[in-house]
């Protein structure tokens, strides 16, 4: 019985992993990149690059909010919603926006944003239209072209498979700590197995955490039933109870002047004198039902949202607050979302998150390559590879090499597409998918080792092109970023340079193994590079 249990677990691990490994690689790849989504968005908007971080960031917030409120009162006194994003350690720009009236047929009212330099309160040039890091963030659970609901269900199912694969993986890998520090290089599928084990074991807590909490972020879509059973009105009522600050006042037509924002801020500063404010929202400005919501930063607490306060917009009275005294269950739930998004992470932890994400990509990639390789090795001399094996090999190349190439293309497109192009943000995304499609088309027939080598070369070139194109089209470049301490920009460029070097190494490695086996043999570094993209 015991023997057959291990057997069925091995079987399950292989199949559950294989069925979704390419999709999982996409999710992990895009997800890992989105740990730096704010930095990427900054990189993608060169118009804001010259903004300096403020020395007294928190202290000048009250003044900034006052100023922006005066601006909004002039520009859009009757808008349904205002939003102010204050500068934060990761993003020095102060921006505010208001909702324009909704046109028929639009799902959401378009938002009109203005960007300011927080040091001088001068308006910055209108940044180019781009999704930036947000594209990768949405891609990792919305899959872009697919309908949002279907996509999320697919992602949930894939994550569930991943969790099953992780657990069965622990079960079957009995000597989990025995070979932890050993890696046998140049031994065919043996080396891939070692690489698979090392990349899984070294970040195992992270892998389990990120997969589990990933499903938790979408859980109310997957399992709304407890809420539906317990509450009369289902999910909506539950959310209203859980987050009273989201309760919207009924829009009213009656015009009433709003309370001075200073009164609202004073209440916050009396509560917590060093409050670090992240956002301010206003709903139904200048009406009888206006509301002001203030979000504070989380600090180093493992919570997804810091304290939030809802004020009556007319009287300035505090109506509700969240995140202050939560029950254990609510905290448990919220900390799971916080762990997944890692919004709280400061640079050191953020890099560790990124590193663990890379390990996750390596784990998935080595898993699919190992599988194809084993089947190859098992083929007898005269035997033709089956259709299934060929399909797996093609898909491996398309996903593992195509995705990083498409990512580089996306970044290059951000700099090269003309600024006045209509629907520019979507065109950038189109470039991403067209590049990927091109890699896919080149890999339909049969995959040989040279395909891997060409793609490694292409990827290396594309990666080096990104900082070069950036230097040619904007004022700054890799070296000036270093000299002026613009770490976000320096980081993005450096990541591409590192990735380029790794792809070069990979192409060398494939070439040197030419004589050994007649099969694609990418170096294990490949996965690392991909990630950096």
């Amino acid at each position: 019985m015991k023997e057959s249990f291990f057997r069925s677990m091995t079987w399950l691990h292989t199949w559950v992993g294989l069925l979704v490994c390419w999709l999982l690689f996409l999710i992990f790849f895009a997800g890992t990149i989105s740990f730096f989504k704010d930095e990427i968005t900054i990189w993608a908007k060169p118009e804001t690059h010259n903004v300096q971080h403020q020395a007294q960031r928190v202290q000048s917030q009250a003044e900034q909010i006052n100023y922006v409120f005066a601006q909004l009162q002039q520009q859009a006194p009757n808008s349904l919603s205002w939003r102010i994003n204050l500068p934060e350690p990761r993003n020095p720009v102060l921006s505010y926006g208001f909702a324009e009236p909704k046109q028929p047929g639009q799902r959401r009212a378009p938002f009109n944003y203005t960007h300011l330099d927080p040091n001088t309160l001068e308006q910055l040039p209108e940044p180019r239209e781009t999704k930036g890091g947000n594209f990768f963030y949405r891609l990792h659970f919305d899959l872009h072209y697919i309908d949002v609901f279907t996509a999320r269900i697919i992602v949930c199912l894939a994550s569930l498979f991943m969790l099953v694969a992780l657990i069965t993986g622990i079960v079957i890998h009995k000597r989990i700590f025995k070979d932890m520090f050993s890696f046998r290089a140049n031994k065919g599928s043996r080396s891939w197995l070692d690489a698979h084990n090392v990349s899984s074991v070294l970040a195992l807590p992270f892998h389990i955490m990120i997969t589990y909490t990933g499903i938790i972020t979408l859980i109310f879509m997957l399992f709304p039933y407890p809420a539906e059973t317990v509450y009369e009105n289902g999910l909506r009522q539950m959310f209203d109870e859980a987050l009273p600050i989201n309760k919207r006042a009924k829009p009213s037509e009656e015009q009433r002047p709003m309370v001075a924002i200073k009164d609202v801020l004073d209440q916050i500063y009396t509560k917590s004198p060093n409050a670090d404010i992240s956002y301010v929202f206003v709903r139904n400005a200048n009406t009888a039902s206006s509301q002001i919501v203030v979000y504070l930063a989380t600090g180093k607490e493992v919570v997804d949202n810091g304290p939030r306060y809802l004020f009556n917009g007319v009287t300035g009275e505090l109506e509700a607050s969240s995140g202050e005294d939560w029950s254990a269950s609510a905290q448990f739930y919220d900390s799971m979302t916080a762990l997944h998004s890692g919004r709280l992470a400061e640079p050191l932890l953020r890099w560790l998150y990124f590193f663990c994400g890379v390990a996750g990509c390596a784990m998935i990639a080595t898993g699919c390559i190992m599988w194809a390789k084993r089947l190859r090795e098992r083929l007898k001399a005269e035997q033709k590879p089956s259709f299934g094996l060929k399909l797996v090999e093609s898909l491996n190349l398309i996903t593992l090499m195509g995705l990083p190439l498409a990512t580089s293309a996306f970044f290059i497109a951000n700099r090269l597409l003309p600024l006045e192009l209509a629907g520019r943000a979507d065109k950038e995304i189109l470039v991403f998918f067209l590049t990927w499609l091109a890699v896919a088309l080149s890999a339909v027939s049969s995959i040989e080792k040279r395909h891997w080598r060409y793609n490694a070369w292409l990827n290396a070139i594309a990666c080096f092109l990104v900082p070069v194109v950036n230097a040619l089209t904007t004022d700054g470049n890799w070296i000036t970023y270093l000299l002026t301490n613009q770490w976000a920009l320096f980081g993005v460029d450096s990541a591409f340079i590192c990735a380029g070097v790794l792809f070069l190494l990979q192409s060398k490695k494939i070439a040197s193994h030419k004589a050994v086996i007649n099969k694609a043999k990418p170096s294990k570094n490949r996965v690392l590079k991909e990630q950096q993209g």
Partner: protein
Amino acid sequence: MHSQSLDAVTTNRPKNTAKKRSVSLSYRVAVFLRFVAAIIGGYAFTSVLISLLAVLLPLNKLDSVLLTTTLSVFFYCCVFIWVFAVKSLKTVWITILLTTGGQLLALSLIKDWL
């Protein structure tokens, strides 16, 4: 799916029918049914289980909902693995249907749905 690959794992299949090397149709159907049991059966079982727990737990409404929903993935995952660990497919289906039905009955008695 891929005949080659299926063949390669024939020896690893959960049921001890590895005597013949070829992949029979019945084997494929069995695998498919197991996945159906795991994905859909597991989903139904988990949904009913957590709904029942949310009603029964001696916590306030919000807490019991949040707690059970957060744990749902864990239950789902356990059921998924269990489906593949059990030898007989019949046992799997009967157990899932019976337990889900029983819990559903209990839930509807509590909530007065009947």
